[in-house]
């Protein structure tokens, strides 16, 4: 397959079919987009804390620009950061290496996937500069606002936004097919279902969820595109259409999407926790089946986003039940990770700090979701800053904390060098502490009645007493953004000058640690492809003197 396809020069980086290069393309594109999304947050948070200020480095934020910034921030962070980094970058890098394959099953589809993704990223960035400005109808893009340029005043921005999102879906469908087929067909000899590392399972389950949920939204997006450009009336009530139809299609995708990004992060956290606690995962099968159950349930909760949207009020009762039920498997996933710590020998290296922070912070996101799933409470909390703080307490642990955990853990394998652990820890605390200072105040603001997506709260005198919390949140955001400089310094410095990494610096069991750091094209020499003899989490096994037992060792 991939053997003998080694490319030279610049082509190696831009036209490669090697899964590791494609992973790096996704990773660095995602990181760049993350910086863009983060800086957008800086601009609109400044406007919220100090309305009307000329934001340093940007200028005065107009209401149209404000709406465009929050819309782009949300869209970019979900579609161009969380998905490419968690699923595409780590899925591409880890799946072949962890199942002992020389590459993906469809390397050219893989290359196409990234190229389509890159095009979508260029489109969403370009939409910031078109006449009328970028789309400002929120990342949920509800019609009629999104469907009619007379309402949104961004004729080009709205359509480009939609095309960019649709292309991104195409990229992930191509990538997802590849992940699923690769796991099914390219496993090393001896690797049975329960020998597959959890992160691989999770990325593949996430890909399946994505493929099952995105279809209706693509249909919806085509109808929205026709409404925008051809003047059809799928969402226009004056012509027999229904705006709420879009909401159903969007959230039928949108809620499983939460688990599409959550599951890979949980998988990474599990692998890291097992390694640094020197512990077998507590209840491998419980974990796996719970993740599947979560995925199935996630298809039956979507309308909890629409309790007050004008749906039949009786429907809310059903979705309250399903939504609260999903707290059971999610709690269980957390319990399993926590139980894995019992009896361990825990060392707090940088990747482990991130992995543990994921659990500690995600729990806040989890329990605050229950307030919103309870229909009676959502009547008040819907679309307040409470919602915003809640999903940032889920997405930030997933997309940022989870990514840093995975990145610092697999960095030696990716680049063949070690990162600086002290700088890593400073960066960790400099990110996690400000994160809480951003979003805990926003929970309070939400309970006090602050609505989302309001450009300037001065029109709402009732909210005045708590406005100082906006200043706290914005200050914390700036501190957090500044600490990222440290990360990029550590990254680029260690990439070139860090101490050389051995094959298996963390003394871990999974197959990616049995090849060189970084792995050569084809991952292993052709005559040394690994065989698998046991599961991925055999730490401290009684039959072995060392406290880890790599999957590829016969005994």
């Amino acid at each position: 397959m991939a053997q003998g396809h080694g490319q030279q020069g610049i082509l190696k980086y831009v036209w490669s079919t090697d899964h590791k290069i494609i992973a790096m393309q996704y990773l660095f594109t995602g990181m760049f987009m993350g910086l863009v999304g983060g800086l957008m947050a800086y601009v609109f948070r400044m406007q919220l804390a100090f309305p009307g200020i000329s934001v340093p480095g940007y200028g005065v934020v107009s209401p149209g620009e404000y709406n465009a910034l929050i819309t782009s921030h949300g869209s970019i962070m979900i579609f161009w950061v969380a998905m490419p980094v968690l699923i595409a970058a780590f899925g591409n890098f880890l799946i072949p290496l962890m199942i002992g394959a020389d590459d993906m099953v469809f390397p050219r589809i893989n290359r196409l996937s990234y190229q389509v993704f890159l095009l979508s990223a260029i489109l969403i960035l370009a939409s910031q500069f078109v006449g009328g400005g970028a789309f400002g109808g929120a990342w949920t893009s509800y019609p009629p606002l999104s469907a009619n340029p007379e309402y949104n005043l961004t004729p080009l921005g709205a359509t480009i936004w939609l095309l960019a999102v649709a292309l991104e879906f195409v990229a992930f469908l191509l990538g997802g097919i590849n992940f699923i087929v690769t796991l099914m067909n390219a496993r090393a000899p001896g690797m049975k279902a329960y020998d597959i590392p959890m992160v691989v399972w999770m990325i593949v389950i996430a890909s399946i969820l994505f493929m099952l949920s995105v279809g209706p939204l693509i249909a919806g997006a085509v109808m929205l595109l026709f409404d925008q450009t051809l003047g059809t009336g799928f969402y226009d009530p004056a012509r027999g259409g229904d705006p709420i139809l879009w909401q159903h299609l969007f959230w039928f995708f949108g809620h499983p999407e939460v688990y599409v990004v959550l599951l890979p992060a949980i998988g990474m956290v599990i692998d890291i926790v097992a390694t640094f606690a020197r512990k077998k995962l507590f209840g491998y099968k419980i974990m796996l089946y719970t993740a599947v159950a979560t995925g199935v349930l996630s298809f039956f909760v979507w309308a909890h986003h629409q309790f007050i949207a004008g749906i039949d009020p009786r429907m809310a009762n059903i979705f309250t039940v399903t939504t609260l039920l999903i707290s059971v498997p999610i709690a269980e996933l957390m319990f399993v990770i926590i139980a894995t710590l019992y009896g361990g020998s825990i060392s707090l290296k940088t990747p482990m700090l991130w992995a543990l922070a994921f659990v500690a912070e995600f729990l806040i996101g989890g329990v605050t979701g229950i307030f919103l799933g309870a229909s009676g409470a959502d009547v008040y909390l819907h679309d307040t800053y409470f919602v915003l703080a809640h999903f940032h307490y889920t997405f930030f642990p997933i997309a940022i904390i989870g990514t840093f955990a995975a990145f610092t853990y697999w960095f030696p394998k990716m680049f063949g060098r070690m990162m600086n652990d002290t700088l890593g820890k400073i960066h960790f605390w400099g990110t996690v502490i400000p994160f809480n200072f951003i979003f805990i105040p926003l929970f309070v603001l939400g309970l006090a009645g602050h609505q989302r997506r309001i450009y300037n709260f001065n029109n709402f005198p009732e909210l005045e007493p708590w406005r100082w919390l906006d200043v706290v949140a914005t200050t914390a955001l700036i501190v957090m953004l500044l600490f990222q400089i440290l990360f990029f310094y550590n990254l680029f410095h260690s990439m070139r000058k860090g101490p050389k990494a051995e094959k298996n610096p963390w003394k871990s069991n999974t197959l990616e640690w049995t090849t060189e750091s970084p792995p050569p094209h084809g991952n292993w020499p052709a005559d040394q492809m690994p065989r698998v003899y046991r599961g991925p989490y055999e730490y401290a096994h009684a039959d072995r003197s060392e406290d880890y037992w790599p999957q590829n060792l016969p005994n």
Partner: protein
Amino acid sequence: MVERLILQASSYAQSIDGLIMLVAALAGFWFFLAEGVFFWLIWKFRAKPGVGSQYITGEEKHLKRWITIPHALVLVCDVFIIVGAVQVWYNVKQHLPEADATVRVIGQQWAWIFQHPGLDNQLDTADDIWTTDDLYVANGRTYHFQLQSRDVLHDFSVPVFRLKQDAVPGRTITGWFQPTRSGTFDIQCAEICGIGHGVMAGRIHVQDESEHAAWIAQHSSVSAQ
């Protein structure tokens, strides 16, 4: 606790805040328990020289209990929350009590239009009172509102009432509220509706019965002429 952040001014505000507190108590219990156990384990099983880790699969029955028992207890808590949530929801959104008066609320880019009944207490008659951005109601009376939109989605939100409802073009959505406190309060648009979304603020003036009667008498006659 919510009422310390923002007043309660409708008959159902207290029950919604009560539900929020019920969830806070139940979810808070699990949250602090999980975080407590979590940090305790990290401390207790920190790496110590010469002490290895234990081999525990978690597959045996007596070990699975550590997951299945909390699992069942979480489910029990969920049932309590579901019952509370459905009860509150039913009273606020599903059940429509008899109204003393009906007002029409119309959202448009970017203003609220309010249609009050005049002296005859009937909508769509000649003496209706039309206002923009200011809604006048009497304290203690039960109101139905008929919510409409002229263009895009809006959301009629009165935080002190704990009331929120989307306005959808092409539909009339009927809901209710009963003010319990006199004063002037914020009305927000809570669904993004374009560049003027942030300025789409209104005020609801909850008046005493006599004050409100006088207001109607004064404006109704003006409208009827």
